[in-house]
Every structure is written in C-alpha cells, then in structure tokens.
C-alpha cells in the first residue's frame, strides 16, 4: 500500500496532464506505428515507444496504465491507448489514439485474409500453413504453462483455473455462461481477501480516501 507521499504523487500523475505538443494527430500516428510494428503482440512495442523512445510515461506509469487496461474488458493495449490519449489530449486524443490502434492494421489483416482466401488452398502454401500452425499450437501451450507459474500455490485459484478449463476447454460450453457463473464468485472471494488490506489502508490514510 502506498504511503502518503507516493499516494499524492500517484494522484498528481492521474490528473489529466494535457500536453499541447501531443495532439490527437500525433497520438493517432504514434499508435498506428505501435500497432503496425506489433508482430506477435503490441504490448512490447507500446512500452518501447512510450517509455524508452518518446518518454511520455515513466516505467511505473506505463505499468499502471497497463494494469488498468487489463481490468477493462477488450484489447488491453487499445484500452491503454484510449486512456493515455485522453490524458494527453482529451476526448480528441482518446479518439485519435484508439483509431490509431486498429485503423491501419485493419487493412493489413484484410489483405492477409484475401491472400488466404485465394492461395490458402494451394499445396505449398497449405503445407507452410500446416507447419506454422503446429508451431503456433506449441506457443499457446508454452504460454499457458508460463501463465500458470504466476498462480499462487493455494488451492482456491487453482480450482477456478481448472473449472474454467473444464468448462470452456474440455466441455466447450459457451464462454458467456461460464464467465457469468464463475467471475462473480472468483471476484467475491478475492473481495473478502482484500477487505483486510483495505481496512489497513484506511487506518493508515486516516480516512482520507
């Protein structure tokens, strides 16, 4: 939990810091660049551009925006783009950054779809796709394996993981129903766990929050 000074700093960084040099157009171009360089995911390039190259954000701020983008449903980096765009240039900035994320890649993927439709069945192309797919399956397995390393060694999170896997992966039930059934319970349990933390913070902040 943050102490008083870091809480104040965080509050300051959260307030809309309009930057006249970062216009909606600049945001559009920046996020177009980020999303077009996003081979195999855009997160890596977003951090590199926003933190390392442009220095619009500190490392910690980037992590904050990413965390926030993850809680909001949908594409994480898109949500981040919208929030950041708003911070720097208001509603126009949010629109510019959001559109930058997908407007140009839209044409790239449609181009790929056209190619797939016309050449996907050609023997050589088809063989290449089969080989690529075999590797991509391996990547999804490795990814799932790495993610489980982040689970705490407690039984309750594992039960939710296994229930989700059984319902969505093995039984192929529609995600909508599975999420509606599991998410409230999973969040409810965690809410109880964080109750102690929250009480702690309130005591320390002296009711300031």
């Amino acid at each position: 939990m943050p102490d008083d000074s870091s809480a104040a700093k965080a509050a300051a960084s959260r307030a809309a810091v309009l930057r006249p040099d970062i216009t909606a157009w600049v945001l559009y171009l920046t996020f177009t660049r980020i999303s077009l360089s996003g081979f195999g995911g855009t997160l890596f390039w977003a951090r590199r551009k926003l933190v390392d190259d442009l220095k619009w954000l500190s490392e910690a701020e980037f992590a904050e925006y990413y965390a926030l983008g993850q809680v909001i449903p949908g594409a994480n980096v898109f949500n981040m783009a919208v929030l950041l765009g708003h911070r720097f240039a208001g509603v126009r900035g949010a629109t510019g950054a959001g559109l930058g994320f997908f407007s140009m890649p839209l044409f790239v993927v449609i181009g790929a779809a056209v190619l797939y439709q016309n050449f996907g069945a050609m023997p050589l192309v088809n063989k290449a796709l089969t080989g690529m797919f075999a590797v991509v399956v391996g990547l999804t397995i490795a990814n799932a394996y790495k993610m489980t390393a982040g689970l705490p060694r407690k039984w309750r999170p594992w039960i939710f993981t296994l229930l989700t896997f059984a319902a969505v992966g093995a039984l192929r039930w529609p995600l909508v129903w599975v999420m509606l059934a599991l998410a409230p319970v999973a969040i409810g349990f965690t809410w109880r766990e964080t109750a102690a933390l929250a009480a702690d913070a309130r005591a320390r902040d002296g009711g300031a929050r």
Partner: protein
Amino acid sequence: MQQDDLSGMFWHYLLLAALAVGGLGSVIPDIQRYVVEQNGWFTARQFGEIYALSQVIPGPNVLIVTMLGWLVSGWQGALVVTIALFIPGSMICTMVIRAGAHNPEARVAVTVRRGLAPVVIGLSMSTAWVMFSTLTGDWRAAAVTLLSVVLVLRTRLNPLWLIGMGAAVGMLGVV
C-alpha cells in the same frame, strides 16, 4: 441470411469483447466454438491456419476477428465485427475517465484483476487444448508442436523465427 449473420456476429463479438478481461486473446476458444462448431463457417483446421496467420502479420493479434468477419461476409463483416470488438472497451474507458477512477491501485481494480487471473489462466489453457486437439492423429505435427514448446521455454528465440521455421518444415513436406 447474410443480414442475420452480420447482426449475429455483431452481438456475439460485442458480448465477447465485454467479457474479455485480461485481453481478447483469452476468448479465442469461444471464438473457435462460435465460428467452427456453432456456425460451421470454417473447419477446425482452417481456423487453426487463420489463427496462425493472425500471429505472424503485423498488427494487434485481436484482429483475427476482423479476418474471420471478412471471410464470412466481406467488407461489411470485417467492419461490423471490428466495431463490435472495440465498443465495450471504449465505453468502459469513458466511464473510468468520467468517474475519475484512473487508479489501478483502487480496491475494485485490484480485486477484479486478482480475482479473475485464475479464470484467465484457465482460458489460456483452453486455447492450448482446443488448438492441440485440432492436430488429432497427426503425430509429426504434434512432434513439431512439442519441439516448439521446448524451444520457447528453454531458449530465448523470437517466436516469429520459430513460426518461420514451422513454415519451412511444412513446405519441405515434413509435416
């Protein structure tokens, strides 16, 4: 018929995007269920190929949905599903901004993140399972898959190289 497909896709992807906490990648198993099992627009094999393609082209991986929409009903399909994909996030971002709730340390944000992490992991396991079961009976493809699992976990090779090697191996007729 086509109009039905369009509005069906719109609502389905809108709902999925609204549920996709932790990223759209986690709803891939349900997208497969929707386009392969429920509607029969693609075979499991085709879906796998399209998924593999979406991983290697520049751009956000979530735009696999745009590819699927285009293949089902052309430009209209691509536009409709892409818009559906970004509506929930935009709306909730707007609410977060309006409410001034920009704080990722807030208890609600922490709880949602921490509470849903196991579910998101279960979904990524589901993706792996659904994709792996597409390889049914093809032991050479399964061998390539297992080899790439080992390479990803044991080396620091860029996954794009691995996918490129997969293409080469495929073209040589090994798989």
